[in-house]
């Protein structure tokens, strides 16, 4: 193992490896409601079952809570980010999720949260949902933006007509290798808190953490992905190739989707810093990352470089 591979901070070893991410399409929506509770209900529902594009169609999460002064209509709100593998998939997910989770939620309204470049692709937001109004819907163009007003039982549902679709990055990740479950969870939770404080990123898995990291392919032909056996402690003495030593009893992964390459990198950096700040005394042994040998995604995040220790 080279000197670079032995980078150690506070007793936590940072592997000389990289996370590999891939391009996605994304948008930001702003959901407002009569009060913060109902805005949150809508946002939680909209971002539910959106952990992985493998089977959910999109990856989505709450980016942050918005104060009334930050929203278009002066009410409490929530900003959510939605990522898909293509603009077409994204359009389908937006229509389904906003239609079923925001249109239905009392007092809500929905707007785009992106200005986007003038030539940005745009996808429907209220454009198709308006037909729920059965002909009673009316539109209003305000400062060049079209809003649809759909009569509903609590008044009217206001939705901006379209939202920009921008290029984004999905699949940034960190692997936290710890002595036991308690230590792995504690480190992951600390990293999630630090990463969620940053703008333009979401951590789409439950609580921001995933325990079922996957590798591409499977012995079963019908499965596109399967358990990442190299990082499963149960398989350390069994698997042909393992990345774990006997002292690692639990591994947690944090997946990051961001609007830009830099956003993902920043989140990974603060996540690692939060973990190493706790030190080896908290039970964390190593930080690593998942990749496919650099062959799948164009975005590579070298852990040492993110910490400013490239070549250390």
């Amino acid at each position, binding site marked *: 193992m080279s000197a670079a591979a032995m980078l150690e901070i506070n007793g936590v070893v940072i592997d000389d490896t990289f996370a590999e991410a891939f391009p996605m399409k994304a948008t930001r929506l702003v959901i407002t409601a009569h009060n913060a509770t109902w805005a949150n209900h809508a946002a939680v529902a909209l971002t539910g079952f959106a952990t992985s594009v493998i089977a959910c169609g999109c990856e989505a999460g709450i980016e942050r809570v918005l104060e009334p002064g930050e929203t278009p209509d002066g009410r409490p709100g929530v900003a959510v980010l939605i990522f898909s593998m293509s603009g077409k998939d994204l359009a389908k997910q937006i229509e389904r999720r906003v239609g079923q989770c925001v249109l239905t939620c009392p007092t809500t309204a929905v707007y785009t949260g992106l200005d986007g470049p003038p030539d940005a692709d745009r996808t429907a937001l209220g454009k198709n949902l308006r037909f729920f109004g059965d002909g009673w819907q009316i*539109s209003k*163009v305000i400062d060049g933006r079209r809003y649809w007003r759909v009569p509903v039982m609590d008044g009217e549902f206001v939705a901006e007509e379209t939202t920009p679709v921008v290029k984004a990055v999905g699949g940034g990740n960190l692997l936290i290798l710890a002595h036991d479950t308690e230590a792995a969870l504690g480190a992951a939770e600390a990293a999630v808190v630090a990463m969620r404080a940053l703008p333009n990123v979401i951590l789409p898995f439950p609580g921001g953490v995933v325990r079922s990291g996957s590798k591409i392919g499977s012995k079963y032909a019908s499965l596109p992905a399967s358990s990442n056996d190299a990082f499963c402690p149960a398989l350390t003495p069994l698997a042909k190739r393992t990345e774990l030593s006997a002292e690692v009893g639990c591994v947690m992964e944090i997946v990051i989707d961001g609007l830009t390459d830099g956003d993902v990198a920043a989140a990974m950096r603060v996540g690692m810093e939060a973990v190493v700040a706790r030190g080896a005394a908290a039970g964390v042994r190593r930080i690593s990352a998942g990749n496919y040998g650099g062959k799948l995604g164009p975005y590579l995040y070298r852990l040492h470089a993110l910490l400013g220790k490239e070549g250390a």
Partner: protein
Amino acid sequence: MSPANDRDANAFRLRLRAQPALRLDLAGFVPQALGGETPSGVARRALWHGNEQVPIGEFFDVEAMAADGPELVFEGDLSRCDGLGRGLDGGRIRVEGDVGDYVGSGMRAGEIVVTGSAGLLAACEMAGGRLEVGGDVGDYAASALPGDMDGMRGGLFIVRGKAGARFGDRMRRGTAVVFGDAGDFLASRLVAGTIAVAGAVGAHCGYGMRRGTLIFAGPQPEPPPTFVPTGHDVQVIWTLLARSLAVHGGPFAALAAARPRRFVGDLAADGKGEWLLPA
């Protein structure tokens, strides 16, 4: 004009020397059409004066001026000059004084500012850009040309003074803001769009209105029998509208704090238009 001053330019100042004997048609005389022209070249451009064409230099002194982009500035009483900025598709026009009929008609982009008043049919069939009239506008502003189906269909039209009759007749998109009073038949046959008025309105307001929004920031008119109240909460769209109008200041600045009453009508014409009465 000395040859040294007769250089290519994209912005010109035109000073009216004397009132034309007949109506002067300035249609097509827009900044983008004059880019790279010299003042003497501009002065040779022909305009219709009554039924004859005459060089513009017969009526205006033309000089080049410095500007960021294509621009024309007119000085003097242009109340006998019609069609100014007709079909404007970019650039800026400023009139320091009054202007005649059809100002900004069919304009699609760019900006026109008139410090004085405008004649009939200002902003008729305007489709984009920004037109501001510092004084009053005559009848049929923001409406349709005679025989046409659609009136103003986009852009922002601001009237600092009073508006004549039939303001916004058949208007179907865009935003019009009137700081003063409006004449009879305001927003008659309105198809869509937004009209905000700070002054009093004349008779038959909203007659035959199909869709669109009327906002009364000042005196609150009594809705006619063909308009009915709706009792629901419209605070969301109201806030969006009020925040947009607040940039115009004056009586529009504080609308967002109000909780408006909403009436819909004209029930004789589909009834999807709305009046918002914030006071």
